[in-house]
Every structure is written in C-alpha cells, then in structure tokens.
C-alpha cells in the first residue's frame, strides 16, 4: 500500500477538493471502495442534489425525504446531502412542532432566507459532516464510521465550505457561533482531518489546484493530505521512437493500413503522455504525496470500472481477481 494512503487511513475525515470535470467523484468513490475493501467502515458524503456518487455505485435516486446514509455494502455507505436539507434538519431541532415547521419551510420568506443567507447553508452542511463524525454505536459506543470521505462541490464553491466555519466563528454569535467553533476545531485537527486535492493534467485544473492548495494550506491553515492526479495517459514508447517507425513493406495494403493505425494511436497516446508530464510540472513544487489514476478507456463507465480504478489507490494484495466479468462484485474486507 502506498505510504500516503496508509497515512490517510489513519485519519477520520477526508475532504476532496477539485475543479469541476476532473473526475473528483470518480476518485472519491474509488478511494472509498479501496478503504472499504480494507475492512474500514466507510461513509461517503456528497453535497449534491445530483447524487453522482450514489449513481456511480448504482444506488437508486434519493427520495426527497431520505436523509440517512444508504448502504452500498456492509462496509460502505453513502450520504447524499445538501444545504437546504441540512438547514431544514437544523431547524427541526429548534422548532420541534411538525406542522409549524412545515408551514415555515414552505413559506416564501424561508425560501428567500435559504437563498440569501451568506454561508449558512455551507455551515450547516459542514455541521452535518461533524455530526456524522460524532455518531457512535449505541451498544458498543464505538464510532459508527471508521472513516468519512467528503466529496465537496467544484473548487471555488468547496473552498467556501471549508472557509465557512472559520468565517462564522468570527462573525456569528449564538448557537451558530458555538457550532462553528466545534466544526472548526475538527477541521483543524491534523490527526483526524486531511484536505485532499484532485486534478487532471489539464492546464486549467493544474492552476486551480495550485490556487486551492495555497488557500487551504496557507490561508485557512487546514491539514492537507494527498494529491490525486486523474486520467493520466501512459506510453511505453516516446513520440520520437514511434515517429521513427513505419509500416514497412507488408503483404497487403489492408494490413499496412492497420499497422499505420496502430502507430497513429501509439503516437497520440505518447503525445498526450508527454504533454501531460509538462503540464503537471508546476504541481511538483507542492509538498503533497501523489496518487496517480490511469486514464480509463472503458466503453462504459460503471461500478466495475470504478472498482478497477480503486486498485490505483490500494493495489490488490495478491493476484488481481480473475478477469472482470463486468458484473458488480461486492467488495469484501481484505484478509490481512
């Protein structure tokens, strides 16, 4: 197991930050699957009404009132939540009278308030993460989850989630001020928490990652974890080496065409791999261990593809399980 991943496994709360479109959800789901295979009771939290992670795992769409984690396997559960849901739950604590609560939630004033209050949604969503981290099994009093992975929204917005407890701590009094203090101390606890970054070898994604690292590590002073680089191309031969090759004199023209195609594809892949290496250079300056995800050429992207990718996080201990049948295999705890 890569040491960087072993270190992550020691924590309790992992956040994932990345530009839209870099495959952040793919990385989070793969990592969660890998952790669950280690026998860790894993909770994946996504802040999104689109519930992309749940969809990737093949879970049915969330019903409107579903606020509890749903289990994918004995060791992996998924919680799809959002600001509006979190706020409503929070209000339920303050206003326990159900009909009154409903009247309020349905009132126009409430709709405006949810839309308008700066950062309240983000704060309460973080509060929900905090609450899940605190959950204990009533019998054993052990934590309900060994590790929590949080799939934050696209970079700009996700930094607001991380920033909000800090801002609220300064700005708010009352219950929210108190709550934000508690969330903030969890966020800053390097023993428990790590902010991870997801990028691709794309120029925009790279520069956004640099900016996000700067903000997380230097401005917000939060503990950082791993840099995941997604969709990496790989070539065994250089463009130069492939350029030197020709189809030669072959028996048939058709055959020659196929060989030319093979060389063209090899050339493309090598060019992509070489271009990516250049694009990624600025990230080498970041003091973060990296985990590399290969580009996945799968014709269909489903749970079996993700399972494959999860081996980039923690390679299989023995031989890979015999050829992927395309059918979902339940992740089983590793035999250690």
């Amino acid at each position, binding site marked *: 197991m890569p040491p960087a991943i072993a270190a992550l496994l020691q924590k309790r709360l992992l956040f994932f930050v990345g530009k*839209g479109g870099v495959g952040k959800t793919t990385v989070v789901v793969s990592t969660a699957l890998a952790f669950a295979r280690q026998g860790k009771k894993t909770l994946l939290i996504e802040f999104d009404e689109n519930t992309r992670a749940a969809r990737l795992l093949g879970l049915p769409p969330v019903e409107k009132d579903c606020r509890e984690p749903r289990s994918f396997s004995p060791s992996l559960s998924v919680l799809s939540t959002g600001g509006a849901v979190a706020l409503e739950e929070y209000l339920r604590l303050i206003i326990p009278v159900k009909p009154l609560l409903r009247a309020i939630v349905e009132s126009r004033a409430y709709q405006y308030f949810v839309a308008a209050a700066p950062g309240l949604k983000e704060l309460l969503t973080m509060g929900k993460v905090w609450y899940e981290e605190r959950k204990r099994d009533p019998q054993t009093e052990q934590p309900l989850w060994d590790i929590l992975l949080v799939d934050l929204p696209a970079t700009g917005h996700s930094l607001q989630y991380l920033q909000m407890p800090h801002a609220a701590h300064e700005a708010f009094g009352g219950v929210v001020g108190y709550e934000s203090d508690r969330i903030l101390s969890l966020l800053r606890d390097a023993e428990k928490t790590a902010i991870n970054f997801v990028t691709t070898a794309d120029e925009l994604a790279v520069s956004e990652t640099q900016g996000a690292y700067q903000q997380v590590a230097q401005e917000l002073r939060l503990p950082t974890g791993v840099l995941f680089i997604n969709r990496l191309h790989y070539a065994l031969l250089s463009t130069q080496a492939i350029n030197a090759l020709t189809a030669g004199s072959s028996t048939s023209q058709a055959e020659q065409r196929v060989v030319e195609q093979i060389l063209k594809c090899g050339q493309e892949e090598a060019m992509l791999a070489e271009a990516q290496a250049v694009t990624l250079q600025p990230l080498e300056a970041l003091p973060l261990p990296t985990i590399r995800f290969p580009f996945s050429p799968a014709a269909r992207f489903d749970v079996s593809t993700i399972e494959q990718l999860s081996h980039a996080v923690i390679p299989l201990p023995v031989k890979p399980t015999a050829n992927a049948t395309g059918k979902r295999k339940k992740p089983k705890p590793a035999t250690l």
Partner: protein
Amino acid sequence: MREKKRQTDLASVIAAHRVVVCVGSGGVGKTTTAASLALWGALSGRQTAVVTIDPAKRLADCFGIDPTNVQGKPVPPEMFQAYGLHPTGTLTALLIDQPSAWDAAIARYAPTAEIRDRILANRFYQGLSRTFAGSHEYIALDTLASLVQQGTYDLIVVDTPPARQALDFLEAPQRLQRFLDSRARKWFLRPPGGWNILSVMNKTTAFLLRKIEEATGISALAEISDFFTTMQEMFDDFGERFQRVSALLASEDTAFILVSTLEEEVLTEATQFLTDLDRLAIALKAVIFNRTHEEASLSSAKDNVEVTLTQQLSRTLHPPLMSSSHREWLVKNFLAHQTLAHGEAIRFAQFSNSLSSTTPCVRIPIFPAFPGDFSGLINLSSYLFLSPKGRKLRRKHNENSKQ
C-alpha cells in the same frame, strides 16, 4: 452524408444569431470552444465579443491581452497577421473577474458614493458577491446586458459558468427577479422600531425570523437587513435590466450551443440538459463534441485480435522493434483506443438521435496538447467550420506550424 451536412450548418447558425450562448458541464473545453466560435465570427466580418469567466487567465494569454484589463480591447491585428489571416471583423475578449465585477456593478447602480461604500463594506454583500449560488451567472448576464445595450458588437459569444444544473444560467434572471421582489424585500428591511415590530408582519415569517435570529445571533440578520435597506433604491433599475436580458435570451436573436464530450458521465448531464431546455421551450441550435476518438476499421478477424496484431507488427514494422513488450503495448493501446472510440460511436448515435435532424452536430478529434495558444484556436475553428473557409484556415494553420 447527413453528418457532413450537419457540420457545414454551424456556420449558418453563427451567421443567423446575434448572441451565442455556450452551455455545458465543466471540463469539456467550453471556454476554448467559445473563443474559437468568436474567432470565426471575426473572420466572417463581425464585430465580435467573447464573454468568459477565465480564472486561469489562459484565454488572455492566448489572445495576447492584458488580463487585468477588464475593459477589453480587440485582439491586435498582428496576432491574426502572424498566421496569414486578415479578418474583416474584430475580436474582443471580455474576461470577468467575479468579485470585482460585482463591485463594478454596484458602483454603476449606486445612486450616491455613500450608498456604494456602505454596500461594499457590508459583510452580507461580500458573502453574496462571492458565494451566492449563481453569482457567476448574474455577472455574466449583467455583462451581456451592458454589451447589448452598448451596441458595439454584432456578435456576442457567451461562455457560461460550468454547471451541473446547466439551467442555472437561464433561470438566473427569474431567480433574481424573485429575490428582488418587493414583497420579499420588505421582510428583510429593518423595522424603524426594531425587530419587535416583526409581529405586524405575517406571523409565520415573524416567528421564523425570530427563531433564526436566536439561532444565528443577531448580527447576521441585522446585516442582511442593512444590505436590503441600502440596496432598496437600486433594485428597480437592476430588476428591469435583467428582465430585458431574460427576454433577449428567449428571443430569436439568441442561439444556444451545447458543448460536450462523448464521455458517458458528461453525456448523461447533456441529456438532462436537453430535457431542461425542452421544458423551457428553447431549441438547441448546435452541439459540439470535443476530444472525440475515431474508430479504425479492422479488416482482420475479431478472434485473437491481440495476438494477430502483435504478430503483424513484428512482421511488418520498419525498423523492427526489438522489444516484444513495446509491440504489445502498441497493440494494447490501439485496442483500448478502439474500445473507447466504439463506446463513443454508440453514445454519439444515441445522443444525435434525440436531436432534431437539422441540428448541426460537430465532432472535434482529440488534440494532443489541446489549444493553448492562438494557433490552437485557429486550428479548432478550422475543425468547427468545415466549409471552404475552414479548409483554407486549416491549410494556413498547417503551413504555419511547419515553419
């Protein structure tokens, strides 16, 4: 061929509209595509502007302009001349820096300097301008409104912020309208007699506000109220403006173009987007697929294809590759490419079937080292518009890259 016909149509879509809005998920090359469409506009003799939120300032580099200059000056003619192009129109990039764009909007609308400063210093405003869901959209819309009003440009290409709920952009004007609705505003205005007067309002609302206030601490609510009180005078102008943009977006002058890739996840979102557009009775005018792969036709038998191809390589490659692992890699890579291309072909067929047959669908092949500079944009433009002019462009680009 139907596909060929579709492709040439993109030029007429651009020619027939004054505003072109590029929509789609994040990471599909939307900004670059918008810039290439605009470049085409300039080459076709239009006074073109491309409006984009470009956090990495890459587009600015591409155009050789100063990214701190938000006013926007046309791309210098030398940029074009360097590639043997002599546009009859102009190309101006307007790069939006979000918080400062909000500040500029406030400065524009504030009736007095005092009100302006009070708003700018308000924490609620500061939060709103940076975090308010959709604030990118508002600013893009506001910029669009200014441009249309100015009348300097006869083609405006808008690169929308990446969105999963792609309709955020379209619905932004209505949302803002609702938000600024006078009745809603009233709820947040600070009553002259203090918060106790809330009881004269709708009882539920009053109760809610009190409860929220207890929970959040009074400072938050007081600031929100202060913001609304200060902004009150500015609202009418603001609202009216957005109504006009809203009407423009729904009009015949505007074309919506979807930018996508043929990846499964991206297409799922694109399909959702089509449904949403349908609901708003807006027709998509074209679809552009970036980073696509083309399937090679394999005449050899499908069985044992990997072995057959590897043997073929060892027989025919010149000079021969010494290492068998190199040959195996070449073949594996080729087959992976085939799988990918095959999946894309199926998804492309499915997706284009759900479109009207007259909607142009353009597939752009994957570019290793995709456009990072002006020549890249020219190249992309030549692929987008496979017309005689597009072919000429491509020739020029090739000549240039050989030099």
